[in-house]
């Protein structure tokens, strides 16, 4: 977050709402580097989670986005925010690959290393479909969707080698120009891929 700036607005509904809109990715740098965020940032994040709990009429993606925030707190060992069972994701399972990719892209904040949500399970079960969705998004010049799909592809196995994900991520980032949301997903994906490559090498070394 922004070095406590948001923290000074801890009671400010506007600041909390802004954090809730941004969602779990507000703390993505901490999640990816496994470093605890500043306590003030964590506190604001936690307040946003508690203040904007989804209601009965909230959309599935809103429910999941909120759950993603609680999961992030859990990962960062914040108290009193146990992850609980994730919401229902069966609505995703039935979607054809273009719509599946679109929805997954909206939920790209859930694509983090070790993600074990039901949404992540759907993505893990359909790597070829998500890869097709990436291709479709690039063809349609929908760089945000491509970046979100690319981020999912960086956390699941079984993606066809011929996809060329690394070059694809570079391509998407450059074609999108200075789009911050695209940059976020692409950088997250690249970070995750670099890290899993390192892990694969060290695992191989131990073997």
């Amino acid at each position, binding site marked *: 977050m922004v070095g406590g700036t948001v923290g000074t607005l801890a009671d400010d509904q506007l600041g909390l709402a802004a954090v809730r809109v941004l969602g779990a990715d507000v703390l993505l740098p901490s999640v990816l580097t496994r470093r605890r965020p500043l306590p003030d940032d964590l506190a604001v994040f936690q307040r946003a989670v508690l203040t904007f709990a989804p209601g009965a009429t909230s959309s599935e993606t809103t429910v999941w986005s909120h759950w993603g925030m609680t999961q992030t707190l859990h990962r960062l060992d914040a108290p009193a925010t146990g992850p609980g069972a994730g919401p229902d994701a069966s609505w995703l399972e039935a979607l054809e690959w273009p719509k599946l990719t679109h929805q997954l892209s909206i939920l790209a904040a859930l694509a983090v290393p070790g993600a074990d949500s039901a949404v992540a399970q759907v993505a893990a079960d359909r790597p070829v479909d998500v890869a097709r969705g990436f*291709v479709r998004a690039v063809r349609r010049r929908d760089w945000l969707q491509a970046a979100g799909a690319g981020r999912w592809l960086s956390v699941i196995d079984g993606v066809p080698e*011929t996809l060329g994900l690394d070059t694809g991520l570079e391509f998407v980032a450059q074609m999108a120009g200075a789009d911050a949301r695209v940059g976020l997903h692409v950088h997250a994906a690249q970070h995750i891929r670099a890290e899993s490559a390192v892990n694969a090498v060290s695992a191989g070394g131990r073997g």
Partner: protein
Amino acid sequence: MSTPRTAHMVTEASRGGRESHASRVSRSALEWVRDHQDSFRLPDGEPALDADANWTLKPLGELAQLTFSIRAHSEPGSARHGHASELLGFAWDQTRQGGLFVDLLRGEPFATYPLEIYAAFAAAGLRHPGFEELAVTVQRTRGWERIEQEPNRRLGMLNSERRVGLPPSGDPSAALARTWLGGLPEPWTFERTAGYWLTHVVFHLTDWGNTPRLMPAELGGYLAAWVPAWLDTCLEAEQWDLSGELLAVAAILPDAASYTGLADAVETGWARIADIQDAAGGIPETGLGRPHEPARDFMHCYHSTLVAAFAATLADVRLAGVHPAAVQEGVA
């Protein structure tokens, strides 16, 4: 001539149930072609060469190529087989039973298109000894072997030589390796031009669906993974001719049923093509088509409609559970 294996060929009666989109398109698109047979006629007098060939000889060559393939995938005695045979015979007559190809070759001995078009007739058993005599000599030269052309076209030349019975002027595997598709490129680098390259590589490699087993397994897996994504975006862009070609590729893939999601993508594709077809069976090359626009002229429809008739025939045979290998190959 080999004995056609017809025991498993599809018939309307054996299929039962509601007619599939592919089956309906295969019938109605061929109807359109029959109704427009006169538009495929070559102009009187000297054969049109150079630029004009795109508007005269090219449609006729496509007519021969695709009706030959449709016939090869149809049960002898069926209406489809009969219609395709009549159209192929018409095209042959337009070439003065091959005499046209002798004229073309004398005019441009080192152009490849006379052989490429002739090869479809030769594969159907319609041959002209005078043409082949000159073609053999031309084809023996080092110059012929080194004609500079697009890699997919080189594969087409090799298939044409095979059909005519000429010694191959190159190695098909090496030719395949030089194509866009042969490099198994990142699927998101697909654009319209690459689409035509790749569909034609598949057509030439498998002799237009007659020998699907000639497709390397790795290539089959690659295509099964990515055709759904390409098809989806071509349909969205209203590129009906390229969509039809991709549907033909899908129908040629060996073991297509084993690939997740391919059958659904194909079904969606045929539903869209059927929807865009006008009442006479015509399909525009691009654009919304009859429900939203005035009917298009012959030049704007012939290619998409012929391709759809070809692709839908392959798909229809596939849907009926006939393995492509069981289809009679190259039978006149």
